[in-house]
């Protein structure tokens, strides 16, 4: 079923509804580690401008997808769309995302470094629990540079990463 969603996203990309996208969240964690329990599919949407966001939003509205809370139900899958306007790291993460194929469908998944960054931003217990395993697959220098760039007072990502490293 996720394959159907990916095909639809690829069509949206082809027709200009979205510029690009990448898989994040639990599905990206599962790509690098073992399958994990989740209730939705997190899709990061590249939006360079407000116009990009409105085009995407209008498509969702006009296509008649059902909404359930923060999710858009696409082909029976609750999808959580995260547009680039939500945080500056999103567009960059999509640009740098890893190209993969799922049952011959081309798609992109966040690199392990940007995935860790997204988990440091969310920083719920379930996020914190998978970071140590993902760290083993990450390029430390690359990760530290990204984390430093996106750390601020509201989201002290460098301190959060340090806490995780100290707990291992």
């Amino acid at each position, binding site marked *: *079923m996720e394959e159907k969603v990916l095909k639809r996203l690829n069509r949206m990309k082809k027709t200009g509804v979205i510029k690009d996208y990448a898989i994040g969240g*639990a*599905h990206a964690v*599962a790509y690098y580690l*073992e*399958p*994990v329990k*989740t209730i939705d599919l997190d899709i990061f949407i590249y939006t360079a401008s407000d116009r990009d966001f409105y085009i995407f939003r209008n498509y969702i509205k006009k296509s008649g997808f059902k909404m359930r809370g923060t999710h858009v139900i696409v082909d029976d899958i609750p999808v959580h769309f995260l547009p680039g306007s939500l945080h500056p790291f999103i567009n960059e993460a999509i640009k740098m995302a890893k190209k993969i194929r*799922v*049952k011959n469908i081309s798609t992109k998944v966040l690199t392990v470094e940007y995935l860790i960054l997204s988990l440091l931003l969310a920083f719920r217990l379930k996020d914190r629990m998978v970071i140590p395993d993902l760290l083993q697959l990450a390029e430390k220098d690359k990760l530290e540079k990204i984390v430093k760039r996106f750390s601020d007072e509201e989201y002290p990502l460098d301190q959060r990463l340090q806490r995780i490293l100290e707990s291992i």
Partner: protein
Amino acid sequence: MRNILWIKDYKEFWKVFERQREKERQRLRSLPFSKKLEMMRIKIKSR
């Protein structure tokens, strides 16, 4: 593989448990992404 149910010593139990769990995690990690998606789908449906 040693049957974990027959181990009486708790230290030995956790040692074998950890080893077996790690082995299973490594097996799951090595599965193709499409297979992992299938397994996650079951987890979503069972909610």
